[in-house]
């Protein structure tokens, strides 16, 4: 990680973060992990989302909110090139990760996903043991020593607030756990690859309120170590956990008659929820549409 960061440091200074964030909105850190300019994502000829201008600060939680079909998940999945799995998907514009264009020819999407981990909407543990689930990432990264794997698995499960519940049954199948435990296991699995960023795609939408609260507490802890981006349907959740919020909506393009998602407003979460600049944002957060 360090070599990449220093290599990029020079480039980063040339970036202008101001046009995406209001000048006085950076309270904690101005280190930006991601920077997008004019980002659009297409599925074939269909432009799913356009005009995404985001600067994602380090070790903060950025929430992407908006009504269904506004492209927020699509945007999130373009941040670790998960969209590459869809044959027709393609990205236009610039997406810089620590100053490096993520979609440059020389970039290997596999390496990208090792550094930018992902947690999905529906908990998707592998049908293997709890241990093997967490050890999966380190193993494919080439770590074979049992002792080292044990340490990584234990540390990851601790960080995911799951260790105490599962330490006596690490060899039990992960599919027998509750939904909330499974999702925390998926977080542990993502952490085990020691990523730089965690992308969470509606991680609580399949969970009950108690499990949701645990994941939210966990996110507050995790942001000490990781930069987190979360897509959520739940505005209260965005308000509770995130430092910054990006509001997306979908509008019909009069030229093509297609519904395309777009970024409306991006600011500190407190600003978005108390004093939004855009009328569409205000309508959404006050429940007048969406």
């Amino acid at each position, binding site marked *: 990680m360090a070599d990449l960061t220093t290599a990029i440091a020079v480039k980063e200074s040339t970036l202008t973060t101001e046009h995406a964030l209001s000048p006085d909105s950076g309270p904690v850190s101005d280190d930006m992990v991601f920077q997008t300019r004019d980002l659009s994502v297409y599925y074939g000829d269909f432009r799913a989302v356009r005009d995404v201008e985001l600067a994602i600060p380090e070790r903060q939680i950025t929430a992407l909110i908006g009504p269904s079909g506004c492209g927020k998940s699509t945007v999130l999945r373009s941040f670790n090139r998960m969209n590459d799995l869809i044959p027709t998907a393609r990205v236009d514009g610039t997406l810089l990760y620590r100053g490096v264009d993520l979609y440059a020819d020389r970039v290997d999407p*596999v390496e990208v*996903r090792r550094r930018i981990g992902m947690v999905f909407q529906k908990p998707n543990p592998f049908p293997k043991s709890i241990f093997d689930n967490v050890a*999966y990432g380190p193993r494919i990264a080439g770590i074979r020593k049992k002792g080292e794997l044990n340490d990584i698995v234990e540390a990851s499960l601790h960080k995911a607030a799951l260790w105490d519940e599962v330490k006596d049954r690490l060899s039990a199948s992960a599919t027998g756990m509750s939904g909330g435990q499974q999702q925390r296991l*998926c977080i542990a699995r993502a952490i085990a690859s020691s990523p730089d960023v965690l992308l969470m795609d509606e991680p609580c939408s399949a969970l009950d309120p108690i499990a949701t609260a645990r994941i939210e507490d966990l996110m507050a802890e995790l942001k000490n170590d990781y930069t987190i981006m979360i897509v959520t349907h739940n505005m209260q959740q965005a308000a509770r956990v995130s430092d910054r919020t990006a509001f997306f909506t979908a509008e019909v393009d009069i030229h093509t008659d297609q519904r395309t998602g777009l970024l409306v407003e991006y600011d500190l979460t407190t600003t978005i929820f108390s004093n939004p600049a855009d009328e569409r944002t205000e309508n959404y957060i006050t429940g007048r549409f969406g």
Partner: protein
Amino acid sequence: MALGTIGDQDVASRVEATIQRRGRDVRGTGFRFALFAALGISTLILVILLVDVLTDGWPVLTDRLGDFWSGTLRSRSSDDSLGISQGIVGSFWIAVFVAVLAFPIGIAAAVYLEEYAPRNWFTSVLDIVVRNLAGVPSVVYGLLGLFLFVKGTAVTNWFVDRVNNRWNAWYGEDLIELGQSTLFAGGVTLAVLVLPIVIITAAEAIRAVPQSLREGAYGVGATKWEVIKSQVLPFAAPGILTGTLLALARAVGEAAPLILVGAITGRLAPRDSMFSGLEDFFGQFADRFTAMPIVIVGWVQNSGRDEGFGPAAGAAIVVLLVFVIIMNSIAVLLRNYFEKKRG
């Protein structure tokens, strides 16, 4: 809001009129009986077949099962050494050919079709072709085998020349004689026959792997090959296994293609030194051969001339059925085991 009272007689009688049972459900019951009858007919036919075969073969199975097992093809049914050993050996090697050739090639083709091939008109056509191949009558595969592996084409001649040159250098004689029906030809023909079945069942098992599982693995930086190896194939294993074992059972029961490639229904000189050395071991693949279904066909054909072949055929059918049932049972057990393991 206060709870209303319940028990008003007028309301109760009106509601009762709307929800009470109206006569018997004649159509529903009839439908159920029709379904049961369909199941009954299929089962009955199978039972009749089993009883018929068992009664035919009973004398042989009870009196001289040991001799029958180790005996060989004979021209007279009264011969004490009449038996199925050559058929068993032939069918065994055919099963090995299928397992060694059709399984890896079929599974690999399925992985390519499902995981790598782009979705376009060409792969759609390929998909339809494979599906149709699975429905091609087995006699047609017999013809293919006859031309490719018995009569010989440019490609097979080239291949045979290579093998014979090598064999000549080692043992001073040809291994394969073209124009001759060989165990190799029979085995490869049946492997080709079941290949489309293996591809289709494996492809279906792979298609049933949840996308979320693949995403989970990609999400922590797995390469495509790692995702296939560590997630897709293990999850699809029960389905693939069932399909392949059923294909194997099919191959072992096929007679028509083997008749065309020239499996022997009459006498066959026994090779008694199959495992004595490399030359004999490979030599048998270039020999004339027979197989269980062919043995049965031969005996049934001869039962008009010599009544004693009838019971022998019945007994051979029972043995073949037992083998097929064992293979299918193993398929079911393995599938259950892997599904349980998969959780």
